[in-house]
C-alpha cells in the first residue's frame, strides 16, 4: 500500500466509526457497513472487484452487528476496513477462498483494536461533561458545541485515525516482506475458509434473535431457507417474495383490526 492509500483508509475508518463528524447515519450505519467499506477500500486500492469478493462475506458475518451504544460487540469500521485492506495487501497469488480467509483474520485483528479504542474514547469523553456543565451554568448557548462536537471529535479522531495508521502501515510493510501465499501451509487456508463459511452463522444467528419473537415464526424463517435449498431461488428473488408476504400480512392484520 502507498502512503496516501494508508491515510485515506485510516480516514474512512474514523468516518465510519460511531460518532464521527458525518453522523452515525452516514458514518456508522453507511460507511461502516462492510458492503460499503469494501467498495470504498476497493476504490482506494484500485481493485473494486477483489474488494467486493471479501466484502460480501464480511457483510454476512457482521450482519448481526448493528447496535451502537453501550453494547458495541465489535468495532465494525475497524474490522471491515482493515479486513478488506489486509486481504488486498496480501492478495498476491491467493484465490477467492484464501482472500476471504485472510479478510476474516484481519477483520478479527482490526475489530479487537477498534473495540479497545472505543473503550478508550468512551472513557476519555467522560470529563467533557464538566465542560458542558460549565457552559450550561453560564447560560452560554453559543458554546454548547464545544464539548460535544469539538472535543468529542478531537478525541474520536485521535482514537481512530492514529491506531489505524499504525495497523495499516505495519500491514503494508509486512506484506512487502515475503510472498505469503507460498509461505502459508495448505491446511491453514482450508481452516480459514471453513471458519469463514461458519462465521456467517454468527451474523445470521444474532439477526435471528432480533426478529424471532413468537415461536411459530420459525416457519417463516424456514420458508426462506427452503426457497433457496429446494426451489433454488436467489436471495433477491426470495426478498421479492418476502415483500409480497409482508404486504399481505400487513393488509390482513390491519383489516382484521378495523373490522
Amino acid at each position: 500500500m502507498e502512503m496516501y492509500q494508508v491515510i485515506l483508509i485510516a480516514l474512512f475508518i474514523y468516518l465510519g466509526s460511531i460518532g464521527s463528524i458525518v453522523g452515525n447515519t452516514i458514518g456508522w450505519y453507511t460507511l461502516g457497513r462492510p458492503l460499503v467499506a469494501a467498495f470504498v477500500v476497493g476504490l482506494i486500492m484500485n481493485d473494486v472487484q477483489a474488494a467486493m469478493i471479501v466484502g460480501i462475506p464480511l457483510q454476512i458475518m457482521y450482519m448481526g452487528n448493528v447496535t451502537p451504544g453501550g453494547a458495541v460487540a465489535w468495532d465494525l469500521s475497524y474490522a471491515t476496513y482493515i479486513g478488506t485492506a489486509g486481504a488486498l495487501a496480501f492478495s498476491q497469488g491467493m484465490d477467492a477462498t484464501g482472500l476471504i480467509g485472510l479478510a476474516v483474520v484481519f477483520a478479527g485483528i482490526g475489530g479487537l483494536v477498534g473495540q479497545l479504542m472505543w473503550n478508550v474514547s468512551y472513557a476519555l469523553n467522560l470529563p467533557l461533561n464538566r465542560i458542558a456543565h460549565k457552559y450550561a451554568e453560564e447560560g452560554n448557548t453559543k458554546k454548547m458545541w464545544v464539548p460535544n462536537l469539538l472535543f468529542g471529535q478531537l478525541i474520536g479522531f485521535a482514537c481512530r485515525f492514529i491506531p489505524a495508521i499504525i495497523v495499516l502501515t505495519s500491514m503494508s510493510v509486512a506484506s512487502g516482506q515475503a510472498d505469503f501465499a507460498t509461505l502459508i501451509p495448505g491446511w491453514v487456508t482450508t481452516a480459514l475458509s471453513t471458519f469463514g463459511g461458519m462465521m456467517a452463522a454468527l451474523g445470521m444467528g444474532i439477526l435471528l434473535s432480533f426478529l424471532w419473537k413468537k415461536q411459530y415464526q420459525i416457519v417463516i424463517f424456514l420458508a426462506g431457507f427452503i426457497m433457496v435449498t429446494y426451489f433454488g431461488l436467489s436471495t433477491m428473488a426470495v426478498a421479492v417474495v418476502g415483500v409480497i408476504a409482508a404486504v399481505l400480512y400487513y393488509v390482513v392484520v390491519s383489516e382484521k383490526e378495523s373490522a
Partner: protein
Amino acid sequence: MAETKKISPSTLKKSFFHWFFWNGCSQQAESMLGMAFGQAMAPVIDDLYDTKEEKAKALKRHITLFNTEAQVGSICNGIVCGLEEANANGNCTPEVIESVKVALIGPTSAIGDSLWVATIIPILLTICLSISQGSTSTSWLGALIYMIVYPLGTCALSWWLFKLGYKSGLEGMQSMMASGKLDALTDAMTVLGLIVVGALTASFVNCSIPFQIVKDVYDGTTGEIIPDTVIFNMDNMLNAIFPKILPLALTLLIYWLYAKKKWSPLKLMGLILILALALTGLGYFSGFYA
C-alpha cells in the same frame, strides 16, 4: 403583555441537523447522549429565552442523562422542542419536560433498535447484497445503492419524526403507538426479515463434516475392481435427509447460545474457530482433504 414565543423554522432545522449529525460525538457512560442533546437544544433555547439565568436553567436540564436510538429518536427532540416552547409561554413546567424526556428513553430506543436498526438495515443490506452478488462485474452496485438509499431515507424519516414530535407532541406519539398500526408494521417487517434471513442462511452459511470412506470396490457384474470409490460421504448423507441441514443446525445453535444462553459474540467467535479447526482436523485425519 409579552407576545407568544415561537421557535423559528430555521432554528428548528438547525436543531435537527445538530442532532442528526452529531448525536454520537461525545457518547460516554455518565450522560450517554446528553451533551449532544444539549448542543441540539442550544439554538432553540437561544430563541425562546432572553435572560442568561433562564438560558442556564434550560441548558442544564438538557445535558443530563439522555439516550435513545438517535435516528428514530429524533421524535424526542421534536417533542422536547414543543415542550420548551410551551414552557417559555408559561404553559409547561421544567419538571414536566424532565420527566417526559426520561419517559421517552425507553420506547424510542426500543422502536429504533428493533424496527429500524435490527430490521430495516439488515433487510436493506440484504437486498443490496443480492444485487451485488448477482453479477461479479457490477458487484459494487449494491454498495452504491445502499450508500444513496439508506442515508437519504433515514434523514427524511428522522426529519419527519422530528416535525411530528414538535407539532403533535407526546399525544401524537402516543396515538401513533396506540393505533396498532406500528405493531402491524413491525410484524410485517419481521415477516420480510425472517424470510430473507432464512434465504441468506441457506446461501451463505457453509458447514460440512469432511468425512468419507473410500475403498476399492469389487464390481460383481464385470468382475473388475474399481479403485477409490466413495462408499460413504457424511455430507451427502446429511443433505439427503434435509438439504443444508448442518448450516441450519449451526445457525440455530448460535441463535440459541446468543439469545438464550447470553453468550457474547466474541465467545461465539471462539467457539466457531474451535469447531472450524476441529472439522479441518477431521478432514485431514480422515484423508478427505489430502
